[in-house]
């Protein structure tokens, strides 16, 4: 599957909506995640307080980011970690590749990291001829399929069991011929086990960076991060600078929020703090440890007044609850980060010019903000990006004219009401049994779904009628 581009958003959406099973496949996972999250929150009456605390941890760290970054650098170096700085994704990828080349690495294992995707590390490794082994099961599936990820927690959610059966039969050395999901997972277990143990370098992301100890923290349910990191001689961490928290005690409230919001579990099975290379005589562990701290647009978000977005702990709850995401899936966004959080992030990681359409796809229903464990006001941030996009004249001319015409109309109530009444009559002409299948000027909507028939009267007509009825009833 080719990777979609953010600038082709409308075309990507058209293609996604034309896939007959996609919506069903996506909803199978997102609906379950939604239900399980609701249960987890119901069982955690202190959630609101935890959420406020989580927000405070992130806001505090962002406020003193330079202080905590310097602390982290000092303490990580004291543990024996080599700290690298990268302003851009390209630079970060190059640093990782250089380390791999220095160690003449032939094979690297990777545990899931959205930052790794963001900085284009997969492609960089593939292009360098180094064998890249994705060890998270979902990443393993999409690596075999040649797909980009479609969700930040379940990157392979767009792939059905039938797809996985085909892929494993084609690529696994000792594949299963069973169609049971348990057997498919076992097949991947067999295939990946020797790769874990023979890798030259393990590359991971980091869910949290602890400033007071220089530690990085990985959080997984599969345990693949530890298997990726421990056997090879070298461990490389790539992490965005916003992953900082002051200490392990400050990571704890975020850990409580992360799992409940992501999968509806109470805690992930494996939380590991990595503190540099192995100590003398340690039974296992890498001899060398590098960490690449990546900016890639994050300081720009600070400068642009988007610092609230730096609170994001990548739980995916906003996309699981997003009506747009549930219809079009992750690939349509054309970015590593889909859904509401992606629509705010991508304009900063790429540019607003190429990713402004995503900001308009939002219905502003506020569900994402409601479920975000660190209270990120996603609709507000999206509206700010829309305003910026308008100021910079990124919208197509037709849209600009329509909005301007609407603004003129909205300033003239009588004219507005007259045009609305005509609109209702016009729409009724195309309606059959309460639905409009097609109508001039609405192709964008009716191409993939029907339009509901409007009420017989406009809102103002109904409002006046009800007011009149009330006043005559009261007499």
């Amino acid at each position, binding site marked *: 599957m080719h990777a979609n581009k953010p600038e082709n958003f409308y075309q990507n959406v058209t293609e996604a909506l034309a896939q007959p099973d996609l919506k069903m496949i996506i909803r199978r996972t997102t609906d379950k995640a939604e239900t399980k999250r609701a249960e987890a929150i119901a069982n955690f009456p202190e959630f609101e307080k935890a959420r406020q605390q989580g927000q405070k941890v992130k806001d505090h760290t962002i406020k003193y980011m330079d202080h905590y*970054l310097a602390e982290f650098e000092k303490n990580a170096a004291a543990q024996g970690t080599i700290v690298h700085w990268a302003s851009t994704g390209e630079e970060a990828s190059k640093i990782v590749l250089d380390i791999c080349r220095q160690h003449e690495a032939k094979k690297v294992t990777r545990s899931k990291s959205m930052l790794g995707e963001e900085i284009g590390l997969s492609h960089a490794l593939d292009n360098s001829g180094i064998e890249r082994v994705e060890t998270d099961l979902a990443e393993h599936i999409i690596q075999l399929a040649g797909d980009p990820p479609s969700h930040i927690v379940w990157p392979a959610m767009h792939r*059905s069991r039938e797809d996985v059966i085909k892929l494993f039969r084609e690529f696994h050395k000792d594949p299963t011929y069973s169609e049971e999901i348990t057997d498919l*997972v076992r097949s991947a277990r067999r295939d990946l086990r020797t790769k874990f143990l023979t890798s030259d370098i393990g590359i991971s992301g980091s869910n949290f960076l602890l400033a007071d100890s220089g530690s990085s923290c990985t959080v997984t*349910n599969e345990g693949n991060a530890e298997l990726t990191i421990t056997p090879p001689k070298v461990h490389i961490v790539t992490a965005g600078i916003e992953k900082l928290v002051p200490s392990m005690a400050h990571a704890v409230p975020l850990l409580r929020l992360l799992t409940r919001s992501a999968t509806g579990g109470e805690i992930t*099975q494996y939380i590991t703090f990595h503190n540099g290379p192995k100590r003398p*005589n340690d039974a296992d562990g890498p001899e060398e440890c590098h960490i690449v701290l990546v900016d890639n647009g994050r300081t720009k978000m600070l400068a642009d007044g988007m610092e609230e977005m730096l609170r994001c702990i990548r739980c995916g709850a906003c996309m699981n609850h997003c009506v747009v995401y549930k219809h079009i899936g992750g690939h349509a966004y054309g970015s590593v980060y889909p859904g509401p959080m992606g629509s705010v992030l991508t304009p900063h990681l790429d540019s607003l010019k190429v990713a402004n359409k995503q900001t308009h796809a939002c219905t502003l229903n506020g569900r994402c903000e409601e479920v975000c464990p660190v209270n990120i006001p996603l609709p507000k941030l999206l509206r700010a990006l829309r305003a910026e996009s308008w100021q910079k004249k990124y919208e197509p001319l037709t849209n600009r004219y329509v909005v301007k015409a609407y603004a003129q109309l909205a300033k003239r109530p009588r004219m507005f009401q007259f045009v609305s009444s005509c609109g209702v009559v016009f729409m009724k002409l195309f309606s059959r049994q309460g639905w409009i299948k097609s109508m001039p000027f609405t192709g964008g909507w009716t191409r993939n779904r029907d339009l509901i028939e409007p009420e017989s009267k406009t809102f103002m007509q109904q409002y006046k009628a009800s007011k009149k009825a009330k006043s005559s009833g009261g007499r």
Partner: protein
Amino acid sequence: MDNKRNNESRERIFNAIKAAAPTVSMDLDIIQKEAQDILAESEFARPKLLAEDAPEALVNRINAGLVIGTSCEIVASLEDLPHSVNQFLNKYSLPPELKVQNVPKLQSLNWESLSIDVDLQKDNTVGMCWAEYGVAETGSFVVHSSPEMPILLNFLPLYLIAVIPKSKILHYMDDYALIASEIANRGETPRNMCLISGVSGTTDIEGVLVQGAHGPEISHIIIVEDQ
């Protein structure tokens, strides 16, 4: 490492942060106080435990099925471990062999007919580790890497038995964070500190939970009274 490039990037990032938030105080006391104040809220922002007593809360959590793939039992003393292990192996119809962590308190026990040194690189094995701590809030055990603790012991076997001294079971993750900070103050931070709460699982295929994705499929915690 290209030091020149690295320093330039570092400077660029710090300058950009300073330019974006120029008014922020850099008074260390203020920063530390703010950070401490946030932690003071933890008491009101964490879940209730299933019992007041930490070991009881941990057992209740596991027995309620809230810790994936995990069972537990309490034994009176270390000498009871071989018997418990035998019962575990019988329950899952496993051969009389496992990898017992190389620590004297476990190695010195009377394992009788059990072989205690299997090759973990083979799949389908049983491992047994000595956990440093337990955490009631999450049903976790905590292991620290060391010369006697290969981290892979906890991730390669298909079955994992963890032994936790009862006195080392903590109420909350926050309590463990405090201990970790004390260890750091003594300059003894191990390379890895792993909080393990259940078994290796995945829901990546059609959202169906499968245990034993890469590591253990079944885990058993044995709490030892007399430690």
